[in-house]
Protein backbone atom coordinates (compact mmCIF):
# COMPACT_ATOMS: atom_id res chain seq x y z
CA UNK A 1 0.00 0.00 0.00
CA UNK A 2 2.69 2.51 0.94
CA UNK A 3 6.44 2.72 1.18
CA UNK A 4 7.94 1.27 4.28
CA UNK A 5 11.49 1.42 5.39
CA UNK A 6 12.68 -0.91 8.09
CA UNK A 7 15.36 0.31 10.45
CA UNK A 8 17.49 -1.46 12.99
CA UNK A 9 15.35 -1.03 16.12
CA UNK A 10 11.58 -1.02 15.93
CA UNK A 11 11.21 -3.07 12.80
CA UNK A 12 13.96 -5.52 13.78
CA UNK A 13 12.96 -9.16 14.16
CA UNK A 14 10.73 -10.15 17.03
CA UNK A 15 9.06 -13.44 17.83
CA UNK A 16 5.59 -12.89 19.27
CA UNK A 17 5.30 -13.55 22.99
CA UNK A 18 9.05 -13.89 23.58
CA UNK A 19 9.34 -10.72 25.69
CA UNK A 20 6.41 -11.89 27.82
CA UNK A 21 8.07 -15.28 28.39
CA UNK A 22 11.23 -13.47 29.40
CA UNK A 23 9.32 -11.82 32.27
CA UNK A 24 9.57 -15.14 34.17
CA UNK A 25 13.20 -14.32 34.97
CA UNK A 26 12.87 -10.55 35.36
CA UNK A 27 11.79 -8.48 38.34
CA UNK A 28 9.95 -5.15 38.04
CA UNK A 29 13.18 -3.44 39.06
CA UNK A 30 15.09 -5.16 36.26
CA UNK A 31 12.68 -3.74 33.70
CA UNK A 32 12.69 -0.25 35.19
CA UNK A 33 16.49 -0.39 35.19
CA UNK A 34 16.68 -1.35 31.50
CA UNK A 35 14.14 1.34 30.61
CA UNK A 36 16.16 3.94 32.46
CA UNK A 37 19.30 2.76 30.69
CA UNK A 38 17.54 3.01 27.35
CA UNK A 39 16.54 6.66 27.98
CA UNK A 40 13.35 5.93 26.08
CA UNK A 41 11.08 8.96 25.76
CA UNK A 42 7.38 8.99 24.91
CA UNK A 43 6.81 8.55 21.18
CA UNK A 44 3.58 10.51 21.00
CA UNK A 45 5.53 13.72 20.72
CA UNK A 46 5.77 15.18 24.21
CA UNK A 47 8.85 13.12 25.01
CA UNK A 48 8.34 12.36 28.70
CA UNK A 49 10.80 9.69 29.94
CA UNK A 50 8.94 6.37 29.97
CA UNK A 51 10.94 4.96 32.86
CA UNK A 52 9.92 7.88 35.10
CA UNK A 53 6.26 7.50 34.17
CA UNK A 54 6.32 3.78 34.93
CA UNK A 55 8.31 4.21 38.11
CA UNK A 56 5.78 6.71 39.44
CA UNK A 57 2.85 4.47 38.51
CA UNK A 58 4.60 1.46 40.03
CA UNK A 59 5.25 3.40 43.24
CA UNK A 60 1.66 4.70 43.54
CA UNK A 61 -0.22 2.86 46.29
CA UNK A 62 -3.34 1.15 44.98
CA UNK A 63 -4.68 -2.35 44.45
CA UNK A 64 -6.10 -1.38 41.11
CA UNK A 65 -4.02 0.20 38.36
CA UNK A 66 -4.42 0.57 34.63
CA UNK A 67 -2.28 0.47 31.50
CA UNK A 68 -3.68 2.56 28.66
CA UNK A 69 -2.44 2.45 25.10
CA UNK A 70 -3.06 5.72 23.32
CA UNK A 71 -4.04 4.65 19.79
CA UNK A 72 -5.95 7.86 19.15
CA UNK A 73 -3.54 8.83 16.41
CA UNK A 74 -5.14 12.06 15.27
CA UNK A 75 -2.29 14.43 14.53
CA UNK A 76 -2.54 15.48 10.88
CA UNK A 77 0.18 13.77 8.89
CA UNK A 78 0.67 10.87 11.31
CA UNK A 79 -0.17 7.31 10.33
CA UNK A 80 2.65 5.18 11.77
CA UNK A 81 0.37 3.73 14.45
CA UNK A 82 -1.95 2.52 11.71
CA UNK A 83 0.91 0.46 10.31
CA UNK A 84 1.92 -0.83 13.75
CA UNK A 85 -1.67 -1.76 14.59
CA UNK A 86 -2.10 -3.55 11.28
CA UNK A 87 1.17 -5.44 11.09
CA UNK A 88 2.99 -5.37 14.44
CA UNK A 89 0.34 -6.20 17.03
CA UNK A 90 2.79 -8.43 18.92
CA UNK A 91 5.11 -5.51 19.67
CA UNK A 92 2.27 -3.34 20.99
CA UNK A 93 0.37 -5.87 23.07
CA UNK A 94 3.49 -7.54 24.48
CA UNK A 95 4.65 -4.06 25.50
CA UNK A 96 1.35 -3.50 27.31
CA UNK A 97 1.73 -6.81 29.16
CA UNK A 98 5.24 -5.75 30.20
CA UNK A 99 3.79 -2.47 31.47
CA UNK A 100 1.13 -4.34 33.44
CA UNK A 101 3.79 -6.51 35.05
CA UNK A 102 6.04 -3.54 35.83
CA UNK A 103 3.49 -1.21 37.39
CA UNK A 104 1.33 -3.96 38.93
CA UNK A 105 -1.80 -3.54 36.80
CA UNK A 106 -4.25 -6.27 35.83
CA UNK A 107 -6.10 -4.35 33.15
CA UNK A 108 -4.98 -2.80 29.91
CA UNK A 109 -7.13 -0.68 27.64
CA UNK A 110 -6.43 0.29 24.05
CA UNK A 111 -8.13 3.55 23.10
CA UNK A 112 -8.47 3.15 19.35
CA UNK A 113 -9.56 6.19 17.36
CA UNK A 114 -12.99 5.84 15.77
CA UNK A 115 -11.48 6.49 12.35
CA UNK A 116 -9.54 3.22 12.71
CA UNK A 117 -12.59 1.13 13.62
CA UNK A 118 -11.88 -1.04 10.57
CA UNK A 119 -8.87 -2.43 12.48
CA UNK A 120 -10.98 -3.56 15.43
CA UNK A 121 -11.83 -7.10 14.28
CA UNK A 122 -8.26 -8.09 13.51
CA UNK A 123 -7.06 -6.67 16.84
CA UNK A 124 -9.75 -8.55 18.78
CA UNK A 125 -8.82 -11.75 16.94
CA UNK A 126 -5.20 -11.23 17.85
CA UNK A 127 -6.09 -10.74 21.52
CA UNK A 128 -8.10 -13.99 21.47
CA UNK A 129 -5.05 -15.78 20.14
CA UNK A 130 -2.94 -14.32 22.94
CA UNK A 131 -5.45 -15.62 25.50
CA UNK A 132 -5.32 -19.09 23.91
CA UNK A 133 -1.54 -19.06 24.15
CA UNK A 134 -1.59 -17.89 27.78
CA UNK A 135 0.05 -14.58 26.85
CA UNK A 136 -2.99 -12.89 28.41
CA UNK A 137 -5.26 -14.03 31.23
CA UNK A 138 -4.26 -15.73 34.47
CA UNK A 139 -0.74 -16.81 35.45
CA UNK A 140 0.63 -15.51 32.20
CA UNK A 141 3.42 -17.57 30.63
CA UNK A 142 3.29 -19.80 33.69
CA UNK A 143 4.25 -17.06 36.12
CA UNK A 144 2.25 -17.61 39.30
CA UNK A 145 -0.03 -14.67 40.19
CA UNK A 146 0.68 -12.65 37.06
CA UNK A 147 -2.75 -11.81 35.63
CA UNK A 148 -3.38 -9.28 32.89
CA UNK A 149 -5.91 -8.73 30.14
CA UNK A 150 -6.48 -6.15 27.43
CA UNK A 151 -9.71 -4.66 26.13
CA UNK A 152 -10.26 -2.24 23.26
CA UNK A 153 -12.36 0.91 23.38
CA UNK A 154 -13.26 2.97 20.35
CA UNK A 155 -13.04 6.75 20.18
CA UNK A 156 -15.71 8.76 18.44
CA UNK A 157 -13.93 11.34 16.35
CA UNK A 158 -12.32 13.86 18.70
CA UNK A 159 -8.70 14.92 18.15
CA UNK A 160 -8.36 16.28 21.69
CA UNK A 161 -8.83 12.77 23.12
CA UNK A 162 -5.21 12.08 22.15
CA UNK A 163 -4.32 14.28 25.13
CA UNK A 164 -3.96 11.79 27.97
CA UNK A 165 -6.31 13.34 30.51
CA UNK A 166 -8.97 14.01 27.85
CA UNK A 167 -8.56 10.39 26.78
CA UNK A 168 -9.18 9.25 30.36
CA UNK A 169 -12.27 11.47 30.59
CA UNK A 170 -13.53 9.87 27.40
CA UNK A 171 -12.88 6.35 28.74
CA UNK A 172 -14.89 7.26 31.83
CA UNK A 173 -17.85 8.22 29.65
CA UNK A 174 -17.49 11.98 29.67
CA UNK A 175 -16.83 14.70 27.12
CA UNK A 176 -13.15 14.61 26.14
CA UNK A 177 -12.12 17.69 28.08
CA UNK A 178 -8.60 17.82 29.49
CA UNK A 179 -8.17 17.80 33.26
CA UNK A 180 -6.10 20.11 35.39
CA UNK A 181 -2.73 18.63 36.24
CA UNK A 182 -1.64 17.85 38.90
CA UNK A 183 -2.83 15.36 39.93
CA UNK A 184 -1.22 13.38 37.13
CA UNK A 185 -2.64 10.14 35.75
CA UNK A 186 0.23 8.21 37.34
CA UNK A 187 -1.56 8.86 40.65
CA UNK A 188 -5.12 9.73 39.72
CA UNK A 189 -5.95 8.34 36.30
CA UNK A 190 -8.73 6.15 34.93
CA UNK A 191 -11.52 5.88 37.52
CA UNK A 192 -9.23 7.70 39.94
CA UNK A 193 -6.66 4.90 39.91
CA UNK A 194 -2.96 5.11 39.00
CA UNK A 195 -2.71 4.84 35.24
CA UNK A 196 0.10 4.89 32.74
CA UNK A 197 -0.88 6.20 29.32
CA UNK A 198 1.65 5.53 26.56
CA UNK A 199 1.76 5.86 22.81
CA UNK A 200 1.48 2.79 20.58
CA UNK A 201 5.07 3.20 19.41
CA UNK A 202 6.34 3.56 22.99
CA UNK A 203 4.95 0.13 23.91
CA UNK A 204 6.51 -1.33 20.77
CA UNK A 205 9.89 0.15 21.74
CA UNK A 206 9.63 -1.26 25.27
CA UNK A 207 9.16 -4.78 23.90
CA UNK A 208 12.45 -4.54 22.01
CA UNK A 209 14.23 -3.02 25.01
CA UNK A 210 13.16 -5.94 27.21
CA UNK A 211 14.51 -8.37 24.61
CA UNK A 212 17.76 -6.65 23.76
CA UNK A 213 18.51 -4.30 26.64
CA UNK A 214 18.75 -0.58 27.23
CA UNK A 215 22.38 -0.41 26.20
CA UNK A 216 21.58 -1.82 22.75
CA UNK A 217 18.80 0.74 22.34
CA UNK A 218 21.17 3.60 23.18
CA UNK A 219 23.50 2.63 20.35
CA UNK A 220 20.96 4.13 17.97
CA UNK A 221 20.01 7.77 17.71
CA UNK A 222 21.62 10.68 19.55
CA UNK A 223 22.67 11.18 23.17
CA UNK A 224 19.43 12.79 24.21
CA UNK A 225 17.16 11.04 21.71
CA UNK A 226 17.95 7.37 21.83
CA UNK A 227 16.67 4.65 19.55
CA UNK A 228 14.84 5.08 16.29
CA UNK A 229 11.64 6.80 15.28
CA UNK A 230 8.88 5.99 12.87
CA UNK A 231 8.35 8.94 10.60
CA UNK A 232 5.09 9.30 8.71
CA UNK A 233 6.05 11.11 5.53
CA UNK A 234 3.41 12.63 3.30
CA UNK A 235 2.85 15.52 0.93
CA UNK A 236 4.91 16.47 -2.09
CA UNK A 237 7.32 13.57 -2.52
CA UNK A 238 7.47 10.51 -4.74
CA UNK A 239 7.75 7.94 -1.93
CA UNK A 240 5.43 8.84 0.97
CA UNK A 241 5.09 6.25 3.72
CA UNK A 242 6.35 5.09 7.10
CA UNK A 243 10.11 5.16 7.57
CA UNK A 244 12.08 3.96 10.54
CA UNK A 245 15.13 6.17 10.91
CA UNK A 246 17.49 6.87 13.78
CA UNK A 247 16.90 10.07 15.73
CA UNK A 248 19.30 12.73 14.53
CA UNK A 249 18.53 12.27 10.84
CA UNK A 250 18.43 15.70 9.23
CA UNK A 251 15.40 17.01 7.39
CA UNK A 252 17.36 17.15 4.12
CA UNK A 253 18.38 13.49 4.47
CA UNK A 254 14.79 12.57 5.04
CA UNK A 255 13.65 14.56 2.00
CA UNK A 256 16.17 12.71 -0.16
CA UNK A 257 15.00 9.35 1.13
CA UNK A 258 11.37 10.20 0.42
CA UNK A 259 12.14 11.52 -3.05
CA UNK A 260 11.08 15.12 -2.47
CA UNK A 261 12.04 17.75 -5.02
CA UNK A 262 11.54 21.52 -5.17
CA UNK A 263 10.68 21.52 -1.50
CA UNK A 264 9.69 24.88 -0.08
CA UNK A 265 8.61 23.95 3.42
CA UNK A 266 8.48 21.02 5.80
CA UNK A 267 5.91 20.82 8.55
CA UNK A 268 7.49 18.92 11.42
CA UNK A 269 5.19 17.51 14.11
CA UNK A 270 1.83 17.82 12.38
CA UNK A 271 -0.66 20.66 12.61
CA UNK A 272 0.58 21.36 16.13
CA UNK A 273 4.21 21.38 14.98
CA UNK A 274 6.38 23.94 13.26
CA UNK A 275 6.89 24.82 9.61
CA UNK A 276 10.50 25.06 8.50
CA UNK A 277 11.94 26.77 5.40
CA UNK A 278 14.81 25.57 3.22
CA UNK A 279 17.40 27.43 5.31
CA UNK A 280 16.62 25.11 8.23
CA UNK A 281 16.64 21.77 6.39
CA UNK A 282 19.97 20.94 8.05
CA UNK A 283 18.24 20.69 11.40
CA UNK A 284 18.14 17.33 13.11
CA UNK A 285 14.97 15.45 13.91
CA UNK A 286 15.40 14.86 17.64
CA UNK A 287 13.80 15.86 20.92
CA UNK A 288 16.58 18.42 21.41
CA UNK A 289 16.18 20.03 17.97
CA UNK A 290 13.17 19.61 15.68
CA UNK A 291 10.91 17.38 17.78
CA UNK A 292 8.07 15.38 16.30
CA UNK A 293 5.69 12.57 17.12
CA UNK A 294 6.49 11.37 13.62
CA UNK A 295 4.51 13.62 11.32
CA UNK A 296 6.48 15.09 8.41
CA UNK A 297 4.52 16.93 5.72
CA UNK A 298 6.31 18.19 2.65
CA UNK A 299 5.20 21.23 0.66
CA UNK A 300 6.78 22.11 -2.68
CA UNK A 301 7.40 25.48 -4.33
CA UNK A 302 3.95 25.62 -5.87
CA UNK A 303 2.10 25.50 -2.59
CA UNK A 304 0.45 28.55 -1.11
CA UNK A 305 1.52 28.99 2.53
CA UNK A 306 -1.58 30.98 3.46
CA UNK A 307 -3.75 28.17 2.18
CA UNK A 308 -1.81 25.75 4.39
CA UNK A 309 -2.11 28.04 7.41
CA UNK A 310 -5.82 28.34 6.75
CA UNK A 311 -6.26 24.56 6.68
CA UNK A 312 -4.40 24.14 9.98
CA UNK A 313 -6.37 26.88 11.72
CA UNK A 314 -9.70 25.51 10.51
CA UNK A 315 -8.63 22.18 11.96
CA UNK A 316 -7.95 23.66 15.39
CA UNK A 317 -11.12 25.75 15.47
CA UNK A 318 -13.08 22.54 14.90
CA UNK A 319 -11.09 20.38 17.29
CA UNK A 320 -10.70 22.75 20.25
CA UNK A 321 -12.84 21.27 23.01
CA UNK A 322 -13.91 24.76 24.01
CA UNK A 323 -13.48 24.60 27.76
CA UNK A 324 -10.64 27.10 28.11
CA UNK A 325 -10.80 30.58 26.64
CA UNK A 326 -7.30 31.01 25.15
CA UNK A 327 -7.83 27.98 22.93
CA UNK A 328 -11.51 28.42 22.11
CA UNK A 329 -11.36 32.12 21.24
CA UNK A 330 -7.67 32.26 20.30
CA UNK A 331 -7.89 29.76 17.48
CA UNK A 332 -10.97 31.47 16.05
CA UNK A 333 -9.16 34.83 16.11
CA UNK A 334 -6.08 33.37 14.42
CA UNK A 335 -8.28 31.89 11.70
CA UNK A 336 -9.86 35.30 11.16
CA UNK A 337 -6.36 36.69 10.86
CA UNK A 338 -5.47 34.13 8.19
CA UNK A 339 -8.56 35.16 6.22
CA UNK A 340 -7.38 38.79 6.45
CA UNK A 341 -3.96 37.81 5.14
CA UNK A 342 -5.65 35.93 2.34
CA UNK A 343 -7.74 38.89 1.25
CA UNK A 344 -4.97 41.39 1.88
CA UNK A 345 -7.22 43.35 4.27
CA UNK A 346 -4.86 43.52 7.22
CA UNK A 347 -2.73 45.94 9.16
CA UNK A 348 0.66 45.02 10.59
CA UNK A 349 -0.49 46.38 13.92
CA UNK A 350 -3.24 43.78 14.05
CA UNK A 351 -1.05 40.94 12.79
CA UNK A 352 1.45 41.75 15.53
CA UNK A 353 -1.38 41.61 18.06
CA UNK A 354 -2.25 38.17 16.72
CA UNK A 355 1.35 37.04 17.18
CA UNK A 356 1.12 38.11 20.82
CA UNK A 357 -2.16 36.25 21.10
CA UNK A 358 -0.50 33.13 19.68
CA UNK A 359 2.21 33.38 22.33
CA UNK A 360 -0.37 33.88 25.06
CA UNK A 361 -2.19 30.74 23.91
CA UNK A 362 1.07 28.79 24.26
CA UNK A 363 1.32 29.63 27.96
CA UNK A 364 -2.29 30.15 29.01
CA UNK A 365 -4.11 27.19 27.45
CA UNK A 366 -5.09 24.32 29.68
CA UNK A 367 -3.81 21.39 27.63
CA UNK A 368 -1.36 20.54 24.88
CA UNK A 369 -3.87 21.27 22.13
CA UNK A 370 -4.17 24.99 22.88
CA UNK A 371 -0.53 25.24 23.89
CA UNK A 372 0.61 24.06 20.47
CA UNK A 373 -2.19 25.13 18.12
CA UNK A 374 -0.60 28.50 17.33
CA UNK A 375 2.79 26.94 16.41
CA UNK A 376 1.97 26.54 12.72
CA UNK A 377 0.51 30.04 12.46
CA UNK A 378 3.49 31.65 14.18
CA UNK A 379 6.18 29.67 12.38
CA UNK A 380 4.68 30.14 8.92
CA UNK A 381 4.28 33.85 9.56
CA UNK A 382 7.89 34.09 10.69
CA UNK A 383 9.56 31.78 8.18
CA UNK A 384 7.58 32.74 5.08
CA UNK A 385 6.97 36.41 5.66
CA UNK A 386 8.42 37.35 2.27
CA UNK A 387 5.85 35.27 0.49
CA UNK A 388 3.01 36.37 2.73
CA UNK A 389 3.65 40.11 2.86
CA UNK A 390 5.58 40.90 -0.33
CA UNK A 391 4.54 38.57 -3.08
CA UNK A 392 0.85 38.89 -2.37
CA UNK A 393 -0.58 42.32 -2.76
CA UNK A 394 -4.04 43.41 -1.72
CA UNK A 395 -6.03 40.32 -2.47
CA UNK A 396 -4.25 39.51 -5.73
CA UNK A 397 -2.96 36.00 -5.24
CA UNK A 398 -1.17 35.92 -8.53
CA UNK A 399 -3.18 32.97 -9.76
Amino acid at each position, binding site marked *: MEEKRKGAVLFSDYERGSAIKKLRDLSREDILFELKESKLKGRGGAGFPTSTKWMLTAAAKSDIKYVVCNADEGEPGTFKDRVLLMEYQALIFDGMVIAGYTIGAKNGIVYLR*GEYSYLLDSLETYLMKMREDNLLGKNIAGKEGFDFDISIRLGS*GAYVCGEETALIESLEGHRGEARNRPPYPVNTGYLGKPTTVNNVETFASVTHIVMKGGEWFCKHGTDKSTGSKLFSISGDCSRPGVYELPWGTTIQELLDIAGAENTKAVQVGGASGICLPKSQFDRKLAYEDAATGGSIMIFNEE*RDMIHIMNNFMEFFVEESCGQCTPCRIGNAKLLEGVKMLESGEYTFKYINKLKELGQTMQVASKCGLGQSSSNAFLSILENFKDEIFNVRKGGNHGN
Partner: protein
Amino acid sequence: MLVMEKNQLTEEIEVLIKKYGKERSSLIPILQDIQKQHSYISDYAQQEVARLLDIHPVEVFSVISFYAFLNSSPKGRNIVRLCQTITCDLAGKKNVASAIERELGIKFGQTTPDNKITLEYANCLGMCDVGPAMIVNDRVYYKLDPEKAVSIINEIR
Protein backbone atom coordinates in the same frame (compact mmCIF):
# COMPACT_ATOMS: atom_id res chain seq x y z
CA MET B 1 -42.78 7.25 18.04
CA LEU B 2 -45.09 4.26 18.46
CA VAL B 3 -45.35 2.59 21.85
CA MET B 4 -44.12 -0.64 20.31
CA GLU B 5 -41.03 1.06 18.90
CA LYS B 6 -40.36 2.65 22.25
CA ASN B 7 -40.59 -0.67 24.04
CA GLN B 8 -38.30 -2.28 21.55
CA LEU B 9 -35.72 0.48 21.94
CA THR B 10 -35.86 0.16 25.73
CA GLU B 11 -35.27 -3.56 25.44
CA GLU B 12 -32.31 -2.95 23.14
CA ILE B 13 -30.77 -0.53 25.61
CA GLU B 14 -31.30 -2.95 28.49
CA VAL B 15 -29.38 -5.59 26.53
CA LEU B 16 -26.55 -3.11 25.91
CA ILE B 17 -26.37 -2.23 29.59
CA LYS B 18 -26.12 -5.92 30.44
CA LYS B 19 -23.32 -6.24 27.90
CA TYR B 20 -21.26 -3.22 29.00
CA GLY B 21 -22.25 -2.82 32.66
CA LYS B 22 -24.25 -0.20 34.51
CA GLU B 23 -21.30 2.17 34.96
CA ARG B 24 -20.81 5.66 33.63
CA SER B 25 -17.79 4.37 31.70
CA SER B 26 -20.18 2.23 29.62
CA LEU B 27 -21.97 5.30 28.29
CA ILE B 28 -19.94 5.85 25.13
CA PRO B 29 -19.85 2.18 24.01
CA ILE B 30 -23.65 2.04 24.55
CA LEU B 31 -24.18 5.21 22.52
CA GLN B 32 -21.85 3.93 19.78
CA ASP B 33 -23.91 0.75 19.46
CA ILE B 34 -27.22 2.65 19.33
CA GLN B 35 -25.73 4.97 16.72
CA LYS B 36 -24.56 2.02 14.65
CA GLN B 37 -27.97 0.36 14.78
CA HIS B 38 -30.18 3.40 14.19
CA SER B 39 -27.79 5.90 12.53
CA TYR B 40 -28.60 8.39 15.31
CA ILE B 41 -29.51 8.56 18.99
CA SER B 42 -33.08 9.81 19.39
CA ASP B 43 -34.37 11.91 22.29
CA TYR B 44 -36.19 8.88 23.59
CA ALA B 45 -33.08 6.70 23.40
CA GLN B 46 -31.11 9.37 25.27
CA GLN B 47 -33.72 9.50 28.03
CA GLU B 48 -33.77 5.74 28.37
CA VAL B 49 -29.97 5.47 28.52
CA ALA B 50 -29.96 8.18 31.18
CA ARG B 51 -32.69 6.47 33.21
CA LEU B 52 -31.05 3.05 33.06
CA LEU B 53 -27.56 4.39 33.88
CA ASP B 54 -29.02 6.64 36.56
CA ILE B 55 -27.57 9.88 35.20
CA HIS B 56 -29.22 13.09 33.98
CA PRO B 57 -30.38 13.11 30.33
CA VAL B 58 -28.44 16.33 29.80
CA GLU B 59 -25.25 14.42 30.61
CA VAL B 60 -26.05 12.03 27.79
CA PHE B 61 -26.79 14.84 25.36
CA SER B 62 -23.62 16.71 26.31
CA VAL B 63 -21.54 13.64 25.47
CA ILE B 64 -23.30 13.13 22.13
CA SER B 65 -22.82 16.76 21.17
CA PHE B 66 -19.10 16.57 21.94
CA TYR B 67 -18.13 13.71 19.64
CA ALA B 68 -18.16 14.08 15.85
CA PHE B 69 -19.23 10.47 15.29
CA LEU B 70 -22.26 10.58 17.60
CA ASN B 71 -25.37 12.47 16.57
CA SER B 72 -28.77 13.25 17.97
CA SER B 73 -30.58 13.92 14.71
CA PRO B 74 -31.23 11.44 11.91
CA LYS B 75 -28.68 11.01 9.15
CA GLY B 76 -28.54 8.98 5.98
CA ARG B 77 -28.15 5.22 6.15
CA ASN B 78 -24.64 5.57 4.74
CA ILE B 79 -22.25 8.20 5.98
CA VAL B 80 -19.48 9.34 3.68
CA ARG B 81 -16.62 11.12 5.42
CA LEU B 82 -14.09 12.78 3.17
CA CYS B 83 -10.80 13.86 4.75
CA GLN B 84 -10.32 17.63 4.56
CA THR B 85 -6.95 17.91 6.28
CA ILE B 86 -3.93 19.34 4.54
CA THR B 87 -2.29 16.42 2.71
CA CYS B 88 -5.58 15.09 1.35
CA ASP B 89 -6.49 18.68 0.54
CA LEU B 90 -3.30 19.21 -1.47
CA ALA B 91 -3.73 15.81 -3.15
CA GLY B 92 -6.98 16.92 -4.75
CA LYS B 93 -9.77 16.73 -2.16
CA LYS B 94 -11.61 19.65 -3.72
CA ASN B 95 -12.10 17.98 -7.10
CA VAL B 96 -13.23 14.77 -5.45
CA ALA B 97 -15.69 16.68 -3.27
CA SER B 98 -17.23 18.63 -6.15
CA ALA B 99 -17.58 15.49 -8.25
CA ILE B 100 -19.48 13.74 -5.44
CA GLU B 101 -21.64 16.81 -4.84
CA ARG B 102 -22.54 17.08 -8.52
CA GLU B 103 -23.37 13.40 -8.75
CA LEU B 104 -25.64 13.38 -5.70
CA GLY B 105 -27.05 16.88 -6.14
CA ILE B 106 -26.35 17.77 -2.50
CA LYS B 107 -23.60 19.62 -0.67
CA PHE B 108 -21.31 18.37 2.08
CA GLY B 109 -23.18 18.54 5.38
CA GLN B 110 -26.41 17.44 3.68
CA THR B 111 -28.31 14.18 3.26
CA THR B 112 -29.87 12.91 0.03
CA PRO B 113 -33.69 13.27 -0.04
CA ASP B 114 -34.08 9.47 -0.07
CA ASN B 115 -32.07 9.33 3.18
CA LYS B 116 -29.50 7.01 1.66
CA ILE B 117 -26.33 9.07 1.92
CA THR B 118 -25.02 11.81 4.20
CA LEU B 119 -21.92 13.71 3.09
CA GLU B 120 -19.53 14.99 5.75
CA TYR B 121 -16.01 16.25 5.98
CA ALA B 122 -13.73 14.63 8.54
CA ASN B 123 -10.41 15.71 9.98
CA CYS B 124 -7.27 13.69 9.32
CA LEU B 125 -8.16 10.02 8.79
CA GLY B 126 -4.54 8.89 9.04
CA MET B 127 -4.27 8.04 5.34
CA CYS B 128 -2.02 10.98 4.48
CA ASP B 129 0.43 8.91 2.42
CA VAL B 130 -2.35 7.66 0.14
CA GLY B 131 -4.74 10.61 -0.02
CA PRO B 132 -7.29 11.80 -0.87
CA ALA B 133 -9.09 9.38 1.44
CA MET B 134 -12.63 8.84 2.67
CA ILE B 135 -14.45 6.51 5.00
CA VAL B 136 -17.82 5.12 3.98
CA ASN B 137 -19.48 3.67 7.07
CA ASP B 138 -16.57 1.58 8.42
CA ARG B 139 -14.64 1.08 5.20
CA VAL B 140 -11.74 3.21 4.13
CA TYR B 141 -11.02 4.18 0.52
CA TYR B 142 -7.85 5.91 -0.61
CA LYS B 143 -5.97 7.30 -3.61
CA LEU B 144 -9.27 8.73 -4.78
CA ASP B 145 -9.86 10.70 -7.92
CA PRO B 146 -13.24 12.13 -8.96
CA GLU B 147 -14.15 9.14 -11.11
CA LYS B 148 -13.16 6.52 -8.54
CA ALA B 149 -14.95 8.36 -5.72
CA VAL B 150 -18.16 8.65 -7.70
CA SER B 151 -18.14 4.96 -8.63
CA ILE B 152 -17.78 4.05 -4.93
CA ILE B 153 -20.69 6.34 -4.07
CA ASN B 154 -22.80 4.83 -6.86
CA GLU B 155 -22.33 1.37 -5.40
CA ILE B 156 -24.10 2.34 -2.18
CA ARG B 157 -26.78 4.42 -3.85
